[in-house]
């Protein structure tokens, strides 16, 4: 009984906080921003526009699939679609190297690992074991908390409209930037990855000893 009351109070406080936050964001940030930035005038629908919308739709549909499907394997498939769409968007921005890296790392590495991990889980036939739900109440709370932030970011950022230019090679420029201007962040990132690798090996070894 007592723990239930505590829970109720916690939920009440959370709801109040979220409502206050949403109200603050709406009145103070989002409305002024929306009024300040006029809507762009729509032009004629060209072929690049259509390609962009198809790719964007693919990405969004894939992301929705990740969030909405009950089966974790279907989620993985949705992730594949979303990543392919994002890769297409990179190509659209003439970032060929980034697009292919996206494909290689996320589909060739991360997604295959996810599928591999799914296959190693026991109770694989039990569909409900995956993708636990917050419940509608928690979901709504999360949505109300996140939506104003995303809206504010979307409205406050000065988006640069970019015409799709010709595909220019970017690989050499990226390499030069990594090894000159951004050498330190690059090396630090490498160290983090190395630490992760060693950590993974250590964890895997412990499991083997317990056998």
């Amino acid at each position, binding site marked *: 009984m007592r723990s239930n009351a505590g829970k109720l109070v916690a939920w009440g406080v959370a709801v109040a906080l979220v409502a206050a936050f949403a109200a603050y964001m709406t009145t103070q940030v989002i409305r002024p921003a929306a009024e300040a930035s006029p809507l762009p005038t729509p032009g004629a629908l060209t*072929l690049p526009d259509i390609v962009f919308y198809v790719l964007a739709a693919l990405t969004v549909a894939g992301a929705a699939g990740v969030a909405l499907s009950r089966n974790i*394997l*279907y989620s993985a*498939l949705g992730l*594949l679609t979303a990543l392919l769409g994002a890769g297409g968007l990179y190509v659209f921005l003439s970032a*060929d*190297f980034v697009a*292919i*890296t996206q*494909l*290689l790392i996320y*589909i*060739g*590495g991360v*997604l*295959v*690992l996810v*599928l*591999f991990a*799914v*296959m*190693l889980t026991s109770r*694989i*036939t039990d569909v409900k074991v995956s993708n636990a739900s917050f419940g509608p109440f928690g979901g709504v709370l999360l949505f109300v908390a996140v939506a104003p932030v995303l809206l504010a970011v979307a409205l406050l950022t000065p988006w640069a409209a970019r015409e799709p230019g010709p*595909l220019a*090679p970017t*690989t050499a420029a990226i390499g030069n930037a990594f090894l000159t201007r951004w050498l330190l962040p690059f090396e630090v990132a490498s160290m983090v990855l190395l630490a992760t690798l060693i950590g993974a090996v250590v964890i895997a070894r412990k499991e083997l000893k317990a056998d």
Partner: protein
Amino acid sequence: MATVTLPKGNPRTKLLVTLVVALALPVILFGAVLVLATIAKPEPVAVFVREVLHHDPATWPFTGLVYGVAAGLLTFMILNFGAVVAAVTIWWEMRVSSRMQSRIGYNRVGAGGFFQWIADAVKLLLKEDLIPADADQLLFRAAPYFVFAGFGLIFVALPFGESVIAADLNVGIFYVTAVTALVVVGILLAGWSSNSKWALFGGMRSAAQVISYEIPAGLAVMVPILMAGTLSMQGIIRAQGAWPWQWFVFTNPAALVAFVIFFIAQLAESNRPPFDLPEAESELVAGYLAEYTAFRYAIFFLVEFGNVWIMSAIAVTLFFGGWQVPGVAAEAYEAARGAGALPAPAWWGLQVASMAVFFVKTFLVMNLVIWIRWTFPRIRVDQMMNLCWKYLVPGAFATFVATLLWQILVARVPVASTVSGVVLFVGALVALVQMLRLAKQNVEAGGDQVDLSNW
């Protein structure tokens, strides 16, 4: 006593028909790829619209459509090329393997059984498309599409000749490595959705194998990239010379090691024996393909054998000088092209020569892959992992560092690469002659003789 029924029909006619088809197939396929790859570019399309259709390509609204049709035809022909190459590889592999195992092999449909692949394809197309009752219907159906998409996408950046490539992406080899991932996703989905323990084990083994071997393969690919200074397939080929002692595999001692690592890793990644653990017949029925029938089964096999061509073509591109024709400099192609909208006849001749060189080299590497399949026993799972992580990965890192040092040396002493090229090429020739001599000796020691007549 059983009676042996011989195939009906005139053997001479059969031989003639087989020869005509066997000669016409490469002419049609390579010819179509050559012509379409040349035409399906913005400038020739513009010329075609102006000269033949009498419209101004800049203002005429259907120029894009004409271009799209040309590109679509090219795609169609390249996919056909992939399918036929896979099918003929099966025939060739079966002939070679039956020679190696002292049996007859395909010999009924067409002379030397050459049309067996058509018969097999028709048979598989007509069979019932079974889906197990407890399988995940959607994923089970979708898995072959992933496999085929990964296979077809590779052909975008796969060179055929000097100017014959669907798209010379400036991230070419990187792209090829990346899209191969779709094949793995397809195999994993096939393994899981079949809802069978054999298939699941096959899929798991495949994932473990491919993830592991991608690392040495990727590192070994870095060696030719470092030597060429570009990721583009055509750029890597252009950085090499036409003569054997100018190939990357010989101009840098580390690249020779890198080639061996790359070759083994590619064998493992394409699930070829001796790395066919994912579909080991003796342990897992047929691994991830155990539940597949008919057309879907055919697609998996098409991709598996088409991958033999692809991996050979990539090896030739990276290490064996690609399509470079000995004695023809890079400028000769430009000079032969002429000023006209469509290239001059001499240019077409050079293109055909370059495609022939590329084909012959790829075919030789393909033969090596086939020999390996029929001479080595399948390795165990633990041996497979040991080989990758204890030998190939450290070896690949070593070749990577050695190549960096070698490039510094070559920058100071340019003659080093020529010396290495000549020395290693002569060494390779001696090894080849020695191998042939030993093979002949072994055959004769068994009281047999080398017999190439019975085809």
